[in-house]
């Protein structure tokens, strides 16, 4: 947020180029894109250097900072681009050692990562042998991923990298046009499992990944909402009813002002979580919680209001605003509910309710 003039100019250039690229190569359509189509876009994005952005310089990174990577995520949200980018642009670079060959392949666009939370346990089978058990929670892009970053959050926490053979997980189509899967790990050979971290270090890394994933999901939502707002303002200024534009009705105007308040509130929470991640500040987890809560209590209702002011067209599949709503619904519903975050935040600021009894 606090940038010098040079950095600001760089930010703007990056954002403009990403927006232009997505507008050209991934213009919004309600028809789900084919895998080939997505692969083509990815290859071009790789040429533009997207997948190098988050990498350390030793691994071929280009020195972008978190704020800039998140602006790519936000633009992808704005375009409702269906390919999940968070694991590739942010999570994998954050946990893979700089010397791993996967980072180079990632930079060239050749790999796809997904992040698997919940549902998986790890068992020691030999002195250094690890077997994973169980099926992970619903993970965006897991159906097409080449590698899974797997978090095991048990008594002995651990973080793994697992290569995936193609077609091993059934594709789950989501309401927002994206796809996901629940990966079963039971039959993966031990030697294929790379241990990224163990013990307290793993716990810290998992917490950091979780916060990063939430922050990125909220930036994606901010982008989607901002794009929806632009679209809706245009529509309201054109569409007429009772002899005047919809945008001239006071009730519509006020609802849109509330949408804008919600959007900027959510943006502030996203920026807070990003700043806290960048500074590795003690408030990092609090900010991520608040961002996820904001997504549910401000973001989603704002998207609903835009459907409402758009009227009939707002509930048709061929119009974009409903897809903004669905993208936010998915973001709010994945990776732990906002209600749970509300509880966590309450315990953080008030102490445990139960213990106080």
């Amino acid at each position, binding site marked *: 947020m606090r940038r010098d003039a040079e950095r600001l100019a760089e930010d703007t250039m990056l954002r403009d180029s990403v927006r232009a690229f997505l507008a050209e190569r991934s213009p919004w359509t309600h028809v789900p894109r084919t895998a080939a189509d997505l692969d083509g876009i990815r290859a071009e994005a790789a040429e533009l250097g997207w997948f190098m952005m988050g990498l350390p310089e030793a691994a071929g990174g280009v020195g972008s900072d978190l704020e800039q990577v998140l602006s790519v995520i936000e633009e992808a949200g704005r375009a409702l681009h269906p390919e999940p980018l968070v694991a590739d642009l942010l999570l994998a670079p954050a946990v893979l050692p700089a010397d791993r060959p996967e980072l180079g392949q990632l930079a060239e666009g050749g790999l796809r990562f997904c992040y698997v939370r919940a549902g998986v346990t790890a068992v020691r089978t030999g002195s250094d042998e690890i077997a994973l058990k169980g099926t992970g929670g619903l993970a965006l892009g897991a159906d097409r991923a080449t590698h899974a970053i797997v978090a095991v959050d048990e008594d002995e926490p651990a973080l793994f990298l697992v290569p995936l053979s193609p077609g091993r997980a059934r594709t789950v189509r989501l309401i927002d046009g994206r796809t996901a899967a629940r990966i079963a790990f039971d039959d993966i050979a031990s030697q294929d499992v790379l241990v990224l971290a163990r013990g307290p270090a793993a716990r810290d890394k998992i917490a950091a990944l979780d916060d990063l994933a939430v922050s990125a999901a909220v930036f994606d939502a901010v982008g989607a909402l901002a794009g929806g707002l632009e679209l809706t303002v245009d529509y309201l200024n054109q569409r007429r009813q*009772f002899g005047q534009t919809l945008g001239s009705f006071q009730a519509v105007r006020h609802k849109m002002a509330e949408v804008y308040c919600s959007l900027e509130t959510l943006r502030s929470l996203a920026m807070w979580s990003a700043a806290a991640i960048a500074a590795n500040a003690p408030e990092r987890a609090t900010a991520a919680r608040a961002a996820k809560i904001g997504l549910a209590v401000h973001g989603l209702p704002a998207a609903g209001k835009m459907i*409402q002011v758009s009227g009939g067209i*707002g509930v*048709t*599949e061929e119009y974009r605003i409903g897809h903004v709503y669905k993208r936010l619904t998915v973001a709010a519903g994945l990776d732990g*509910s*906002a209600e*749970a975050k509300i509880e966590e935040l309450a315990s953080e600021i008030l102490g445990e309710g139960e213990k106080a009894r």
Partner: protein
Amino acid sequence: MDAFLTRDERRFREEIRDVIGRILPPDLARATRRGIHLSREQMALWNRLLHEKGWGAHHWPVEFGGPGWTPVQRFIFESECARADAPPTSVFGLYLVGPTLYTFGTEAQKARYLPPILSGDEFWCQGYSEPDAGSDLASLRTVAERTEGGWVITGQKAWTTEGHFADFMICLARTNAAVKPQAGLSLFIIDMKSPGITLHPVLTIDGGHSVNTVFLDGVTVPDDALIGDVDKGWTYAKFLLAHERTNNAQVHRSRREFERLKARFTGERRTDPGLRRRFALVETDLAALEVTVLRILIDQTQGREPGPEASIVKVIGSELQQTISELAMDVLGERALELPHDTADDEAAGWTERHLFRRVVTIYAGTNEIQKTIIAGTTLGLR
């Protein structure tokens, strides 16, 4: 709500419950739980089964085939149908066309059209809305021109629910361009098999198909397709909107779905304090809405005109439907994010489809904004 019911009414409820329990096919109940876009066959079957009991149109006057129930008995009947997960019967024939015809139609029209609605043999769709006239019907552009022995209708109708399987459309068209916009409209019956009709399906936000755009390209209808007097269509349409508003509250479906949601809310999440609180608030609002609807019906029973509270049940009921489905999405969690067609979880599929589709309930039948403007002006007298 038992406190409001007489002993006879409670006995009536037992009887209805018993009959529905016997005649409702289980797979119809399952289909109702699983989604909202039921097929014509499914709706027709239930209509026929009810008709066999004399309940095909439970709110129609006896002379046209209604069972002669009081408003409170109708409330009970609707509540029991919802409770059993019976499919909804088609709203257009039974709630829109039927009352229009028996109030304003000719004897011949009544004789021809009412019985097949009652039995579920013929389906109707509405032809009121247009692309540029949704809530603002006065600006509609479909034109009906006089011709030898009939009318020629040309225009485009939007948001035509069930149009793709309806037999007839009740169509509002402009018959007089010389008078002020609302005065020159007339109501027509259009056979959906007429030449000149083309349908385009419109998928809704849930990905489903129940809505259509209908193009009327010089569709010829005979003289007796006109309902009532020429240029009086707006009056007839408004008359109907003023009645049966309690139907828009959808209070019985909401109650049933909420009870199902309570049952689904089990296991670990049942202790989630935020969700528990939201359940309690919905319970409060749902009970209040049930009472408000009952107040309107009891007023009717006592021969009083519906009080001003009748204007609010659409607003409250539609918002409550959305609140309930939002709660359901949070209760179901990840499961609810899957495309309804793909998932094996019936309950989740049903909730997701309903949740998405229900963004429409605060928009259709007059947006809630328009309803509030009406409440402020007509009910409260704000100038």
